[in-house]
């Protein structure tokens, strides 16, 4: 049972990818079935982690130092649950989006391959498998991003591919250093053995830098906006909501688990400072963006920044309930952003399809004629701003509390400025929806495409904003603090 539940989230999408390649004629049908099964398996695994303890197995019949380890704990389960639900939403949406176009043929195998890699990153238990999965993720993501075949898209995604390779190389170099020093790549074994040394520090720097490049942490974000803004809407959603999270997940995992003994306040401060730069720069560029999808892409740069602000706070906070709260809030922030950004991109894609372009200044009519889609943008937007009730409001509340409690009040200025800038760029879009165009007849015009976007956006607000407790339970924090 345990074996199955750990393997299925990786095996099912892989099988789906093979089948959709073999039978392109019924690819959308197979794709949706595979997506549903993948999502169910991911949720099943999440349920098991919730019920019991962390799970892990070793494949291939070899002992731990040699075999391929797969493991799931609260952190990976939370992100797995996010990727399951968001992935399902994207899949349902994609059926309508690609209907009657050849691009759909290439979409399904690549998307399912990307999903395989994503779940692989969340579940892999050793550093080398992580590398393999990361590489696979980068390749399939770049191929998906170039799906429109337009000159900008191909150029942007070629750059994305090269950047991804560079990032993986840097990461692999760090892994190689670790392996020569400690003779194992298993994360749990390593975290017991590792101790401060020049070599360990070098490998931390190499691995973090490589992953930060993949996570588009400022100032290494330059590749993200063109790549995400020029992809088809479901792909943009997957790239922005899920793929960057994989790299972030790894950094969080490495810093709080593997390298917990050797990270320093100074190093965490640098990550926080880069995050602050990302928030301010990303939000500013989003405010200046002329196109809706470019705005959403820059907003991702900014939101990734918030996630990195947690590092200096986590570093300074002594272990205890307050630190648990911070850690859970960090995960909550990542998960909320996943839902909100996916909803935002899917809705933006509909607006773009309806209007024929996505220039923000000319979107009034299109936005007003699609109430449900505009509503999705508004809901997702309020989660991006961090307005209540949304998961990111709760996360920001805890983050600001952490900043006060650890005396690092300067992060507050960044958080507040970022929030106001986010409000400005979101309402720049929303204010277009209140024009004097004729009244739309009803709320939902195209259910198959509008409902997934609406549900994703709604989850980021109502579900994660009012019932964030399960993330705490999933991470094993009982929350004794009152």
């Amino acid at each position: 049972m345990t074996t199955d539940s750990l393997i299925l989230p990786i095996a099912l999408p892989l099988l789906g990818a093979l089948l959709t390649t073999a039978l392109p004629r019924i690819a959308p049908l197979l794709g949706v079935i595979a997506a549903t099964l993948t999502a169910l398996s991911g949720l099943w695994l999440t349920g098991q982690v919730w019920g019991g303890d962390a799970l892990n197995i070793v494949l291939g019949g070899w002992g731990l130092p040699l075999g391929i380890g797969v493991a799931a704990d609260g952190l990976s389960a939370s992100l797995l649950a996010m990727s399951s639900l968001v992935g399902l939403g994207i899949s349902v949406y994609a059926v309508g989006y690609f209907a009657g176009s050849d691009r759909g043929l290439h979409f399904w195998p690549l998307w399912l391959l990307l999903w395989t890699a994503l779940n692989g990153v969340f579940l892999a238990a050793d550093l080398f498998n992580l590398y393999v999965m990361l590489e696979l993720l980068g390749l399939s993501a770049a191929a998906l991003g170039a799906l429109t075949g337009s000159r900008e898209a191909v150029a942007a995604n070629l750059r994305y591919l090269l950047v991804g390779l560079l990032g993986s190389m840097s990461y692999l170099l760090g892994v190689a250093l670790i392996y020569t020093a400690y003779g194992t790549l298993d994360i749990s074994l390593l975290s017991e053995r590792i101790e401060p040394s020049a070599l360990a520090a070098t490998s931390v720097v190499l691995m973090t830098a490589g992953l930060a490049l993949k996570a588009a942490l400022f100032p290494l974000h330059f590749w993200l906006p063109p790549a995400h803004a020029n992809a088809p809407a479901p792909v943009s959603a997957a790239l922005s909501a899920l793929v960057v999270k994989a790299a972030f997940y790894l950094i969080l995992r490495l810093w709080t688990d593997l390298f917990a003994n050797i990270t320093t306040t100074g190093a965490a401060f640098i990550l926080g400072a880069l995050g602050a730069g990302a928030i301010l720069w990303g939000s500013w560029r989003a405010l200046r963006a002329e196109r809706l999808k470019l705005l959403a892409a820059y907003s991702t740069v900014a939101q990734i920044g918030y996630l990195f602000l947690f590092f200096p706070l986590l570093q300074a906070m002594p272990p205890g309930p307050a630190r648990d709260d911070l850690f859970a809030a960090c995960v909550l922030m990542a998960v909320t952003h996943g839902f909100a950004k996916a909803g935002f991109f899917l809705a933006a894609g509909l607006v773009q399809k309806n209007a024929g372009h996505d220039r923000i200044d000319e979107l009034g009519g299109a936005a007003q004629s699609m109430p449900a889609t505009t509503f999705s943008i508004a809901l997702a937007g309020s989660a991006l701003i961090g307005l209540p009730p949304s998961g990111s409001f709760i996360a920001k509340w805890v983050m600001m509390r952490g900043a006060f409690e650890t005396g690092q009040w300067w992060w507050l200025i960044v958080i507040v400025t970022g929030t106001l800038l986010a409000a400005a760029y979101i309402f720049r879009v929303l204010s277009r929806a209140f024009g004097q165009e004729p009244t739309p007849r009803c709320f939902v015009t195209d259910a198959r495409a509008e409902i997934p976007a609406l549900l994703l956006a709604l989850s980021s607000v109502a579900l994660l904003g009012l019932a964030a407790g399960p993330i705490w339970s999933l991470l094993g924090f009982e929350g004794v603090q009152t």
Partner: protein
Amino acid sequence: MSQLLTWTALLPGAILLSSLVPGALIFLLKEESHLLRGVLNMAGAIIKLVLVVVLIWGVFLGGVFETRITIAPGLDLVLHADALSVLFVTLSTVLWLVTTIYAIGYLEHSPNRSRFFGFFSLCVSATVGIALAGNLLTFVIFYEILTLATYPLVAHRGTPDATRGAKIYLAYTMAGGVALLIGAVWLRSLTGPVDFVEGGVLATMPEALHPQLIAIFLFLLVGLGVKAALFPLHGWLPQSMVAPAPVSSLLHAVAVVKAGAFGIVRVVYDVYGVEFASQLGLLTILGVMASITIVYGSIMALSQDGLKKRLAYSTVSQVSYIALGASILGPIATIGGVVHLVHQGIMKITLFFCAGNYAETLGVHKVSEMDGVGRRMPWTTLAFTVGALGMIGIPPIAGFVSKWYLGLGAAEAGEHWVLLILAASTLLNAGYFLPILYKAWFREPPKSWPQEHVFDSRFETMGALLWPPLITAALCLIAGLLAAAPFSPLEWATLIARREYAP
């Protein structure tokens, strides 16, 4: 949630949902389903009223009504009914019912009604959430939702003016929201979850933290002051007059402005505790800000020709009476401030309804066009007169009661300068309201009105537009005449003051 789900634990939540659920359903309705939308609106408003009556009775008997949802460990969403929240809940419920009737009449044949009524219900739900908020986190959550829900209402008309007004509104309230958030989180990091408790919770804090508590109060005051339109944070209010009349009424009488004023009362009495706030010198800051706003708003109102703008500046001035009442240490001033929460609401909503009637029926938007409107629309003008005289403070209308208690409370506390402010404000109020009344009743009407609509009705205007101001004007009179009757706003404010000052 291990607690027993009894009706007392469900009632506050049910009151919130009674407008939230119809609101959500209204969004989904087709534009042309007038009847269903009307039924949903009215059903929600009436169910809420019934639930609130039950709540009033329960709280009067000293029952505990609390709905508690744990968002995450240590972060609870609490809806808790105490005497103060019941006062505000009742005000918003009654006025929501009246405003809904008015809005249905006012917006007949205008576009985008599903969107309008959806956000309208959301707005009232947020107000009720603010009223029932049992801790600071819950208050902040609903305070921000209110900002979001009101934005589409201000922008509703879609004209460049409306877009601009909405933008200014958003800029002010967002900045205020952030200040409130900082204050709330800072306080949370010092004390743990901040529950609202009658009498305050901070008095026992060690002396070393007092400077921080003062700074926190200032953050909270800026955050709340934006919505309460305290000078110099009031700039959005006159700009958002572009909204349709029912929205202006709601903004001014019930929702936004009141949310700010109510928040100030909450922070002073139930977070800091009035004695402790006085000890820290915070009441002086609040009192000075409120006094400046009262005089400033009245002076600005004198020179406005636009009727709604004049009323808007009058709101700026009048709402600060509530803050002024909170800034004077002593139960009688508390009564005056708290009761004005209700009195200002019913008087101001009457005035805005009437302004809307003049605009809809005759196309009259300016004070200078109001010559002789009393002859064309006697009932509307009668209601307007009651509201205006009440604002000035003429007995036996509700406004007199507030001013009487404020003045008495100030004298009792030895703050005689407050009497001067009250006197100046009364003179100024008379200065900008009496000329309107004179024009309306005693000047000859013009040959033709700017833009007259003839409604198919036996009254001077559409019935749905006429009844609401008459009802609220009657409430103004009743609240003043029967101020000493049980369950009058004054009696309830006395109950609140008694509980706040209980040893």
